[in-house]
């Protein structure tokens, strides 16, 4: 597994401690985990910002609803894999 996948999985575990995070997170999206509602989504974004040292703007925040989109935006933000 890639480094960022591992890191993302850790972030998911930290943000949603009450849910079991599957090994393969690629297809995960909002609503798939118990606490991943709109507020949970925001908590996830805040945690990603902290852990990957990035900052998303309003457009990006509104766009992010799944791991796929997160990865896409991380790539655009030049976060190395």
């Amino acid at each position, binding site marked *: 597994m890639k480094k960022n996948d591992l890191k993302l999985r850790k972030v998911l575990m*930290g*943000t949603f*401690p009450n849910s079991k995070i599957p090994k393969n997170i690629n297809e995960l999206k909002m609503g798939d985990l118990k*606490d991943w509602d709109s*507020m*949970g989504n*925001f*908590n996830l974004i*805040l*945690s990603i*910002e*902290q852990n990957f040292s990035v900052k*998303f*703007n*309003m457009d990006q*925040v*509104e766009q992010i609803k799944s791991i796929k989109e997160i990865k896409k935006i991380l790539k655009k933000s030049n976060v190395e894999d």
Partner: protein
Amino acid sequence: MHKIKICSSSSIIESNTIWKSLKSKYEIKFTNYGDVISPFLNNKIDHTIVMVLMFEDLIREEKENIFKRKSSDIFNAIKKKSKASSKPIIVLVSKGFGPNILRSAKKNQNDDVKYKFLINNFDNLKRKIKNFYFIELDNVFSLEGYNNIYSNRNWYYARCRLSIQGLQILVNQIAKILNRCFNAPCKVLALDCDNTIWGGVVGEDGLKNLILGQDGLGTAYVDFQREIKKLVKEGVILVICSKNNENDVWKVFNEHDSMVLTKDEIVSYKINWDEKTKNLIQISEELNLNLDSFVFWDDNPVEQNKVKKLLPQVKTIETPKDVCEWPNLIKNLDYFAKFKVTKDDNKKVEQYKSRANFVKNVNINSNVNDFLKSINLKPEILSLSEKTISRAEQLCKKTNQFNLRTIRHSETDLNKIKKKNNDFVFLVKLVDDYGDHGIVSLICLEKIDKDLLFLNTFLMSCRVIGRHLESWILSKIFNIAKKYKFNFLIAEFKNSGKNNIAEKFLKEHKFISISKNVKLKKIIEKSSLDINSSIFYLDVKKTKIQNLDIYEKK
């Protein structure tokens, strides 16, 4: 677990894991953001209230009277609640980005005026209301910079004005103040000498070459000592723990012109080549103070790590390499920070010094009771009054060892007990050859049956332990029991992990387990006491109290 209600004028993202540490320590409930009034309305549940106010939330509406109304609603809610409950009410405020500085350079802007109005009112309340605490967050926010603390994106996306960094600081401040509301501050500062209260090594560099005094780094050491002296005035016990030759150290104290601290401010010292951990343990025994109330300040990381590892309960300071940072660091240290300094705090140093002396002499004398008879013990009973009540509350908060139930009564609670019966709450003051120990004990009694008098609170400051004062106090409690015709004295022992000595007191004075007396047990079962806890009784008529001869007048 303490119950806390947290309310805020805008979102503080309660679901974020940033709150986890607080949630693990307290039972926390958040109200919906924007609603800062409802926690004050329910008088049935007694909880601590934490209110986070973002000033910008209060002035969002253009209309003048809305701000006035909103703020006076808050002031009134606080006033009303503080009359009904003694639990802390804590308000944290941040002003946020102020108006354009050019605009307010000549004329105060409307928002400035409003903010000052708010602050003045809270300042007034904190002076008048005992259990009300007020924190201006901007003092801490400004250290990090507003641009890092506030987040416009979070505001427009989630109605939270703060960035995650800002939230973290907010959580830290709340944790800090709650901790001090419910836990006593540290009592002892254990200091190293070389490269700590002066620069250089006295044994090698000599008195003349120490860095201490007039200019440069020397003034930083002087300022550091000045800050320590301020702590001593607030009642912090100063001890020295230094690997050195004792004579060298005292030579600096006595002969160096720039020393701020004096030898008589040092309550106890271990200046030798032993391990510091061993020395710290000895000092804690001498002073009869738990190591968890010790702060250890030493420049040497090796010593720091040893203490951290072997005595984790001691608060070891990771000192910055640059001594210039030290004066400010110790000044702002939370460990010693207390909400108010009482008259008794100022006498602390003398009291603990005499305590250390007393322990030395007890160890020398073979017959302890004869020795105690010779030191002119003069206890005196004081009633609860305006003069004594703040000390009474302080004793409740701080006494951990000799404390049967460790109930942290507030002034309001104590007044309630006094209202029921004037005789049922009293304090004890003690003077002997070792000094004036001040008020050292608090007793609260409670009627649970016409025959049963309950020891709601029996606590005694650890600095007078070893004088059998508890026996004398017990005899006074017996007198009250007899006066009101109670035949039995009931005591409960609540194990707090720190109060073994209180349990020992019950055993030494032959308290009997309630399970041995079916009749009494039945009465207790009907009372509010938990029959499954450790409950004991004494027969007031039949019991003879020991050690009283020490206190008999010659």
